């Protein structure tokens, strides 16, 4: 046997050495941890018996432009489970109590399995009072189960505002990963509309109350008498540019249709009303949304979740004639004395018919009044496609408006490059005729149309359309405005003066919307009908009022009903009246429950 072989002395020594060295290392480490660094570990351990209780801040509310609360908060109960203390055999009973599907709780716990087991997870919001009292009675058997009072959205002014306000939704795992420092699982975040865009302003700042817990995790008192507590900071109260009355009227008038209406204050770009129908019930989102309700929303052919006001691009129809007229006047290819004869149509490769004609010789003002197609078929050829497209862009079409809610579609304004791509360099020039009257490939969203008419009303300038004017400072209630970009078209005043003369005749003269004629309010507008290859035409109407000093600019689109004058114009008129004749229209009958909700607003936890 070799001396270094089996069980030899050197081998035994090596093993002895390894064992003793390991013990030496451990002993050294123990001395280091338990004697040298004892103090710092002791402090950490002491702070471990301090339990932070999260204080959810009150979400900022929405005021309308007249300081009426239109989105507030009301208290509701939320069931929570702390996984480390929870026994899953309780799930079945709990699910019965909170009226949830079997497996509901375990599924939520499973989804949150990578998160700390020692922090409570929200299971269900808006549990009813019966469930709450059951939880209270049985609390001693329900380890790791508790409930808290949380604030939820309510809408005291009777405004639906489904696309405008938007809703909150439980934070997605991805979003949670991105903002781990602030959110915890089960937190709700703005998911659409203003709630989404202004989430960071609205959410405020979480607070923490530190309490001492004993060995049984029972609270024994406040840590350092609450001196270390960090109170939650309420979110910013936003002041919206919305006028509750105009919004309510628009919602009410549009509820029978699919469509959209947008009203803007021309001088400021402030949106007075923004409606897209069909709407959906935001209250369904502020509590736990039922599966049936959600699947209804997703599968409905009317697409209620789709924000038509900012997303739905459709041919602008005759309302686009105003755009062409402005372009032609500004370029100088016509002036107010330029006469084009309407013989009932226009020939370019084929015959384009004028409706209601022949109108005979017309200048641009009367062409707008009568909405003469012949005049505008001719006009676009005088302007040229690319110039026409350039003016459309300057007047806000073909690109996103930049409205402060995230859903915003650019629409489409074609130019020669666009057609070259499709048809090659010899694209049929006859296509332009349809564009001249706002049909064909051109598409605009209701918000773009409203912005356009605001620009016209305000003689070529306005601000980026927006829903939120500013916020109230927490302690002083001082109004702090947000800043928005200015839009300047650089188009001559003369061009606007002339088209506005035509627009006022549309309503006040012998035009296409004389049904809106009135002494009290001088409305100027333009009807439109967007051809729809899939069904009945879409009715459009754009207008501003009063003519002399425009305070409101409106675009209304009603889908699949027919002529603009018949369907869209009356809605616009009601909105104008709601805004300008506010004091004459009796208030109070629309909103009844304001007293109660005023009290709830501002309640802190």
């Amino acid at each position, binding site marked *: 046997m070799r001396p270094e072989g089996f069980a030899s002395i050197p*081998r035994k020594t090596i*093993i002895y050495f390894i064992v003793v060295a390991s013990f030496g290392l*451990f002993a050294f480490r123990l001395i280091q941890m338990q*004697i040298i660094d004892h103090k710092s*570990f002791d402090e950490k*351990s002491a702070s471990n018996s301090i339990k932070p209780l999260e204080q959810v801040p009150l979400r900022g509310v929405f005021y309308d432009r007249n300081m009426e609360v239109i989105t507030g908060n009301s208290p509701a109960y939320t069931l929570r489970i702390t996984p480390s203390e929870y026994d899953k055999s309780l799930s079945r009973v709990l699910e019965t109590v909170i009226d949830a599907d079997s497996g509901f709780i375990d599924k939520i716990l499973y989804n949150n399995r990578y998160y700390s*087991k020692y922090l409570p997870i929200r299971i269900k919001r808006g549990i009813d009072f019966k469930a709450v009292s059951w939880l209270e009675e049985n609390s001693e058997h329900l380890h790791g189960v508790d409930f808290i009072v949380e604030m939820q959205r309510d809408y005291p002014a009777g405004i639906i505002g489904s696309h405008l306000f938007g809703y909150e939704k439980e934070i997605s795992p991805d979003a949670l990963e991105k903002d781990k420092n602030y959110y915890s699982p089960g937190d709700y975040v703005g998911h659409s509309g203003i709630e989404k865009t202004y989430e960071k302003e609205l959410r405020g700042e979480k607070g923490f109350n530190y309490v001492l817990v004993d060995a049984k995790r029972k609270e024994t008192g406040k840590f350092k008498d609450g001196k270390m507590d960090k109170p939650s900071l309420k979110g910013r109260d936003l002041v919206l540019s919305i006028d509750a009355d105009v919004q309510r009227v628009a919602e009410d008038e549009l509820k029978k249709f699919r469509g959209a209406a947008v009203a803007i204050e021309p001088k400021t770009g402030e949106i007075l009303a923004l409606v897209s129908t069909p709407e959906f019930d935001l209250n369904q989102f502020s509590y736990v949304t039922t599966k049936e309700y959600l699947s209804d929303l997703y599968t409905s052919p009317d697409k209620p979740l789709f924000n038509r006001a900012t997303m739905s691009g459709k041919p602008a129809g005759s309302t686009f004639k105003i755009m062409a007229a402005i372009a032609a006047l500004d370029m100088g290819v016509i002036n107010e004395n330029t006469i084009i004869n309407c013989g009932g149509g226009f020939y370019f490769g084929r015959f384009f018919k004028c409706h209601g004609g022949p109108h005979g010789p017309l200048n641009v003002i009367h062409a707008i009044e009568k909405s003469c197609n012949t005049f505008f078929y001719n006009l676009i050829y005088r302007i040229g496609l690319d110039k026409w497209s350039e003016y459309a862009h300057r007047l806000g079409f073909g690109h996103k408006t930049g409205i402060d809610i995230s859903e915003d579609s650019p629409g489409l304004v074609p130019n020669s490059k666009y057609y070259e791509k499709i048809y090659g360099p010899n694209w049929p020039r006859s296509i332009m005729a349809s564009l001249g009257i706002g049909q064909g490939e051109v598409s605009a969203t209701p918000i773009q149309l409203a912005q356009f008419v605001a620009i016209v009303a305000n003689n070529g300038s306005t601000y980026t359309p927006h829903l939120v004017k500013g916020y109230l400072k927490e302690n002083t209630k001082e109004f702090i405005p947000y800043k928005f970009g200015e839009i300047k078209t650089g188009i001559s005043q003369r061009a606007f003066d002339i088209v506005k003369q035509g627009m006022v005749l549309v309503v006040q003269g012998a035009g296409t919307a004389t049904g809106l004629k009135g002494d009290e309010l001088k409305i100027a507008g333009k009807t439109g009908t967007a051809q729809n290859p899939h069904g009945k035409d879409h009715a459009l109407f754009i207008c501003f009022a009063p003519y002399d000093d425009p305070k409101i600019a409106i675009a209304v689109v009603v889908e699949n009903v027919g002529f603009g004058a018949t369907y869209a114009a009356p809605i616009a008129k009601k909105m104008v009246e709601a805004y300008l004749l506010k004091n004459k229209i009796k208030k109070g009958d629309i909103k009844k429950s304001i007293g109660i909700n005023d009290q709830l607003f501002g309640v802190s936890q």
Partner: protein
Amino acid sequence: MRIDYKLEDKFDLGLFLSFLILFCIGLAAIYSATYNNVVAAGNFHRQLYWGLASLLVFFVIYYLPTTTFRMISIPSYMISLFFLLAVLVIGRRIMGHKSWFGFGSFGFQPSEFAKIGTILCLAWFLSKKNVDIETFKDIIITLGIGLLPVGLIFLEPDMGTTFVYLGLILVMLFWKGISLFGLFIVLSPAIVALSSLFGTVYFIVALFLVIVGLVFFRKDLFFSGSILALNLGAGFFTEIVFNALGSHQQKRILTFIDPNSDPLGSGYNAIQAKVAIGSGGFFGKGFLAGNQTQLQFIPEQWTDFIYCVIGEELGFIGSIFVLILFLYMFLRIIKIASSTKDEFISLTLIGIFSVYFIHLFINVGMVIGLIPVIGIPLPFVSYGGSSLVVNVFMLGIVANVYRTRKNYT
């Protein structure tokens, strides 16, 4: 009949008392750790019954003829393999591991029992007359016997036990008398594999050291090349295995590399364990008075993190006392192992020592933050019936050998 020998001649009282004291400290710690836990309230009593049962096992093994162990070496290994296979097929899933058989209210862990079979079988093979550990063939057979259960355990997957088996093979080969170069061949792939987990730089450094080693041993080029290839393979294989690991095990390895990366997730246990031990101080916070333990900052502290309870509530005094008891046991077993001339028995005892030692090293090392969190119980102290019975069974073999040591010297 005349009693002509002292008790100590036949019975290693020191070894037995060390075990008994460790078990009692463990019981107390389990009592404390489950004091405020409704779910685990019965664990203290269960452990007590297991303790009584294992005493019975101890004395049965103690009185068996020593030759029995050689006889059962192959059958016990075969039965172990059978159960390891069976648990993969019908095992009950606990905490994501498929390593338990369920028999009513208590479980049975084949990978624990397989330790006995593997030690005996390895000792049997290595002590065979015609086995030459310097031949490639016999090294491969040895590795095969040891790694077959590891392969099955790894499939479960249970990383802690895997390490125990790997260490066991290594220590037994070493004891048998493997040359430095043989050790280098066995050990270097393991080190390269481990370093590859830390990143490319470590992997390359480890490979470089292997090349230095090969130059040092001056074997022929083909042989050296094969060994280098083996090392490279081990590194890349680890990468594949790492990706195949359960996500919680991956996370644990990654948090070892950077423990603060996830303080509320898997780094949590590592941090809380250190806080518990460090805050214990010199004298400890007192029995049932450790807030870390009583507030259950570490889940299931009565199993793998039992040493934290001792460290927190009994302080440095308690912690070091436990270490000293283990140290005494280990030195004692090594001494008995080296005093016998029977290779089979000597190898068996050194195998038993290595299982105890690796358990202690990983378990204590992890709770005091020297190595990553790998779930493995502390012998005799942690809660768990299978592991207690197996450890006491092996202690019974040691005591048995002590009893009959004069026949083999």
